[in-house]
């Protein structure tokens, strides 16, 4: 079993787990956990193709992963700030109860 | 670095002696190659651990004696000759104390937290260059490894606080984390200045570039004075030392996140704190005080690791001195000082270092960079001193 295939299965299962978390969790913060997992799965793919894929001198994979890590950190920060504001207004982070727009 | 032509007994290679002895013995016994290298590495790691465990024991005694001397008293002198066995006594006390785990505690995390506090400190100690020949792990990304591992302590502090179940540790943990996070920022920014000037992340390389006399050290540069001072203050905050020792402020919240620990786990916390102190002070010496470089060029005879440990002793003595003098900061003063005063100054050192570097590092660059750095420093100090310093209170009855 070549390592590239192994890594791709790993990242796809991780992506699926992240998606499952996002879909089934009620607590907003744990949805962020799911998003982090999905982002990490994508990063694994980049590094797997950089390491085992066709050689490229431009190091596109690692550079892309650097940007993705920075943006994931920024996204987590803003997401949590928004969740804190929502919690301060509605006293809950349970997404099912945040349904004032349902009309 | 071929091992055969280096004399075995030269003082410079003294710390490497056990490692090379074991490798030589195993090689003679015909052990496989990977076993020799692994055992050599294990022995190298254990020498570092042995050195810093004895340093930890000694420091706990020296700290109490220096604090005592600063308060006109003598300090522990009962256990052994001049109190030299006091660490042994403390160790026995810690080991024999009952290890109570609160009922509401999450057992696994409660056990894991002290381990995860000592682990990063020891990992960080492995990366610092102690002598010209003695760098336990000469990583090419030494500094990044140091900060990556160092930032793990926040998670273990949280685990310690949350797993103890009760509110005090949780509050202590939150205060400790917010302090460590907000002081890690200026720490990394000032270290970035050094990386920018020396152009590499590997610590032995940074020390190599500070060779020659002490005027080559990073601290003797216009931006280096400011960056060094900021880094020094951040090391005090990062190691939770005196003016910033809010997390385990005895008078406020019992013992912060360490409240529900007793016996050996409590000793592990202190070992983690002290080893972390050695690691971060070692990094300060490496980045700004020229690591194992001799202060004057002519001192070739003295083994280089003596210079490193001499400087480390001086820096740690200054921590003790500061602990004997300054009161503890409140959480809001601490936060305001970090965000409104330290981070702007730390950000300022980066352009200063760049200008200094690209103006040829000569006296001209000194004249340009020094005012660029000192003027905002005094401005920030004067402006913030008004809002930072507590207002002078007027007492109605007590004579103020």
């Amino acid at each position, binding site marked *: 079993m*070549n*390592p*590239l*295939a*192994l890594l*791709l299965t790993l990242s*796809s299962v*991780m*992506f*699926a*787990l992240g*998606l*499952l978390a996002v*879909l*089934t969790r*009620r*607590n907003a*913060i744990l949805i*962020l*956990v799911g998003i*982090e*997992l999905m982002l*990490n799965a994508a*990063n*694994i793919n980049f*590094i797997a193709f*950089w*390491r*085992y*894929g*066709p*050689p490229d001198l431009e*190091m596109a*994979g*690692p*550079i892309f*992963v*650097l*940007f993705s*890590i*920075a943006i*994931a950190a*920024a996204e987590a*920060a803003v997401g*949590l*700030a928004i969740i804190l504001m929502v919690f301060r207004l509605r006293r809950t*982070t349970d997404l099912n109860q945040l349904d004032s727009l349902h009309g | 670095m071929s091992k055969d032509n280096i004399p075995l007994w030269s003082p410079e290679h003294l710390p490497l002696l056990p490692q090379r002895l074991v490798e030589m013995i195993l090689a003679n016994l015909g052990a496989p190659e990977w076993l020799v290298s692994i055992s050599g590495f294990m022995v190298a790691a254990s020498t570092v651990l042995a050195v810093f465990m004895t340093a930890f024991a000694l420091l706990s005694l020296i700290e109490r004696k220096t604090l005592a001397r600063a308060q006109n008293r003598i300090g522990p002198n009962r256990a052994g000759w001049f109190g030299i066995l006091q660490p042994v006594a403390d160790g026995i006390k810690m080991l024999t104390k009952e290890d109570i785990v609160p009922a509401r505690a999450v057992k696994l*995390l409660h056990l894991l937290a002290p381990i995860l506090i000592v682990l990063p400190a020891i990992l960080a100690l492995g990366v610092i260059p102690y002598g010209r020949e003695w760098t336990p792990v000469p990583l*090419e990304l030494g500094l*990044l490894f140091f900060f*990556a591992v*160092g*930032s793990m302590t*926040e*998670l273990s502090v949280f685990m310690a606080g*949350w797993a103890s179940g009760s509110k005090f540790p949780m509050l202590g943990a939150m205060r400790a*984390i917010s302090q460590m*996070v907000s002081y*890690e920022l200026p720490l990394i920014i000032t270290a970035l200045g050094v990386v920018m000037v020396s152009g*590499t992340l590997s610590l032995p390389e940074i020390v190599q570039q500070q060779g020659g006399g002490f005027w080559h050290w990073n601290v003797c540069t216009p931006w280096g004075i400011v960056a060094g001072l900021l880094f020094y203050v951040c090391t005090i905050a990062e190691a939770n030392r005196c003016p910033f020792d809010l997390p385990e402020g005895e008078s406020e919240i019992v013992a912060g996140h360490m409240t529900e620990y007793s016996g050996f786990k409590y000793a592990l916390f202190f070992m983690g704190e002290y080893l972390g102190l050695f690691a971060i002070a070692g990094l300060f010496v490496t980045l700004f005080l020229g690591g194992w470089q001799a202060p004057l060029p002519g001192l070739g005879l003295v083994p280089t690791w003596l210079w490193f440990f001499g400087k480390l002793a001086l820096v740690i003595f200054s921590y003790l001195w500061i602990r004997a003098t300054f009161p503890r900061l409140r959480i809001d003063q601490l936060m305001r000082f970090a965000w409104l005063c330290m981070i702007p100054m730390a950000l300022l050192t980066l352009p200063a270092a760049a200008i200094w570097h690209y103006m040829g590092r000569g006296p001209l660059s000194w004249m340009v960079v020094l005012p660029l750095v000192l003027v905002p420093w005094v401005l920030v100090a004067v402006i913030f001193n008004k809002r930072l310093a507590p207002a002078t209170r007027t007492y109605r009855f007590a004579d103020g």
Partner: protein
Amino acid sequence: MASLLILSPLVLLAALGAVWMARPVHAALLLALALALNAVLYLAMGADFIGLVQFAVYVGAVAVLIVFSLLITRQSDETEEIARRPKALVPGLLCTLPVLAVLLITASKVPAASDEAPALPLKKLGEILFTTHAPAVLAVAVLLTAVLIGAALFARETKPNDP
């Protein structure tokens, strides 16, 4: 190759734990473990700079941030059985399984891996980053400062008198 075989099940276990755990703080801590093992995976693959950055940023900052917000919103103690209730699980699985199937099929058709390990020279990485990708780095810098100030403003306790 051997290290990958050891590490990948561990990463998956930690990720599964992060998804499945009832208590939110356990899930967050297991996420931190999954991210740390992920960093070790990068180191095992030779991308040491990326591994250390991942460790510093994710385990050092993001995991602490998530756990901190769990504390602040006082969700850390309520157990949340949602992950186990079939009413939520079935639609979730219905969506994820086809995605998983597609990914696994493509993963199996991938060509043989080339075995020579490319290096990650730090200086070259720095040059590339700040020459060809300079605009992208500046954009990310602006984004991060905006996020720093924005998040601080969002989370600030709005005193009753000012907006």
